[in-house]
């Protein structure tokens, strides 16, 4: 009982964190139909800065890391990413009113990773002084790309079967390159490479890192506004999407938390790392995922998958998921 109360109080405290507060603030602004707009150029720049910061730090840290330590978490990332899509597609497509290709695209988006959710978690861990291996955020593509690939392959198999005869083979390589070329992964990987091979410490410490938290608050505000605005997309599709979008992030996060815990026991993976793994699994892609899926699974209805992800999935992943995993870690690892 005390444990639960303790858990709840820890949970609530985190709601005052700037990342969450700005997210909720953005939703309120949109709900009150405020005319405040964050210009698109600013939003894109915030995203770039965040991914560059995550990439640079990852690159700088991987230099000194034992590559072997990364192996198990990386495998978990790949497995979780694929599993979310496979299981999600199966479950969702059985639900009444849900088209199979929409189900696949939606679970693809939930299997992929949101850089801004990840950044919010990193900032909140810092606030709580929970440490993690600095290369953990660099596991992002290990979960993101496989999830998108599985979704696109599944959708193609499904569509091919529907049309019979037309057995258009799905080529995996173009999906990978198109993911890597997306603005989010490009920025992250460029940051990683610069961190690994050059000496960017001076701009990292004087620019990318100090602006990180502030720009994240602007980003969260924007995402809150967008989440509310896109809610009516969700009204156009079956109610089951809202149900899936509410629970899937937490289920995914908890599964990844469990597997992360195994890695903790086996290889000493840090509690902070376990939390971030859960956050990645619980997040759903907001920047690169949607256009990738839109181009690769044209028949899927974007109102279904973007509505689910942006309006419900992401707010739940950030506002419920992150505090949940942190509180859980505090209980489990006695932080």
């Amino acid at each position, binding site marked *: 009982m005390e444990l639960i109360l303790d858990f709840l109080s820890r949970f609530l405290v985190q709601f005052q964190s700037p990342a969450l507060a700005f997210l909720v603030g953005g939703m309120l602004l949109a709900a009150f139909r405020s005319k405040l707009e*964050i210009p698109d150029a600013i939003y894109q720049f915030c995203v770039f800065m965040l991914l560059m910061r995550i990439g640079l730090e990852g690159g700088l840290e991987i230099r000194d890391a034992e590559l072997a330590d990364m192996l198990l978490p990386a495998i978990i990332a790949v497995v979780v990413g694929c599993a979310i899509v496979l299981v999600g597609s199966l479950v969702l497509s059985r639900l009444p009113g849900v088209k199979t290709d929409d189900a696949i695209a939606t679970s693809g988006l939930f299997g992929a990773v949101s850089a801004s959710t990840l950044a919010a978690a990193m900032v909140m861990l810092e606030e709580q002084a929970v440490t993690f291996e600095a290369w953990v955020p660099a596991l992002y593509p290990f979960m993101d790309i496989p999830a998108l690939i599985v979704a696109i392959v599944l959708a193609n198999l499904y569509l091919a079967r529907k049309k019979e005869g037309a057995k258009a083979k799905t080529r995996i390589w173009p999906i990978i390159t198109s993911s890597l070329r997306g*603005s989010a992964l490009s920025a992250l990987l460029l940051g990683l490479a610069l961190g690994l091979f050059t000496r960017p410490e001076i701009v990292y410490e004087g620019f990318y890192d100090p602006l990180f938290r502030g720009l994240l608050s602007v980003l969260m505000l924007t995402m809150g506004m*967008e989440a509310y605005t896109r809610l009516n997309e969700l009204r156009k599709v079956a109610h089951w999407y809202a149900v899936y979008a509410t629970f899937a992030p937490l289920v995914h996060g908890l599964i990844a938390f469990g597997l992360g815990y195994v890695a903790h026991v086996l290889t000493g993976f840090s509690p902070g790392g376990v939390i971030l793994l859960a956050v990645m699994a619980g997040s759903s892609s907001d920047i690169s995922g949607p256009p990738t899926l839109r181009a690769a699974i044209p028949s899927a209805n974007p109102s279904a998958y973007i509505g689910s992800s942006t309006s419900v999935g992401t707010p739940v992943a950030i506002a419920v998921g992150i505090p949940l995993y942190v509180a859980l870690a505090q209980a489990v690892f006695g932080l």
Partner: protein
Amino acid sequence: MTFKAAKVVIITEKVILEQVAQIIEAMGATGYTVFAAGGKGSRGVRAAGRAAVVDGFSNVQIEVITATHDTAEKIAVEVADRFFQNYSGITYLEDVEILRSHKF
């Protein structure tokens, strides 16, 4: 002196701009012009300029001048057939007059 020519206008999602451009070039047009646009249609509102967390879903308007009405219509039909079942968009044609000095 001016000569008759045609213009085809395509309004659709930014995410397929490259593919539409390929069709336009394949049909032999000498060029095209692209504008950022917002709008409202059967598939909801699309803003432009405002931060879009989900990129690639704002509208573009693509205009192509072609020498013959026929080419314009072919482009319109091909784009509509290939994309407008899955992507939101409309297309229409206009008559225009070009100067002698230009070749389209």
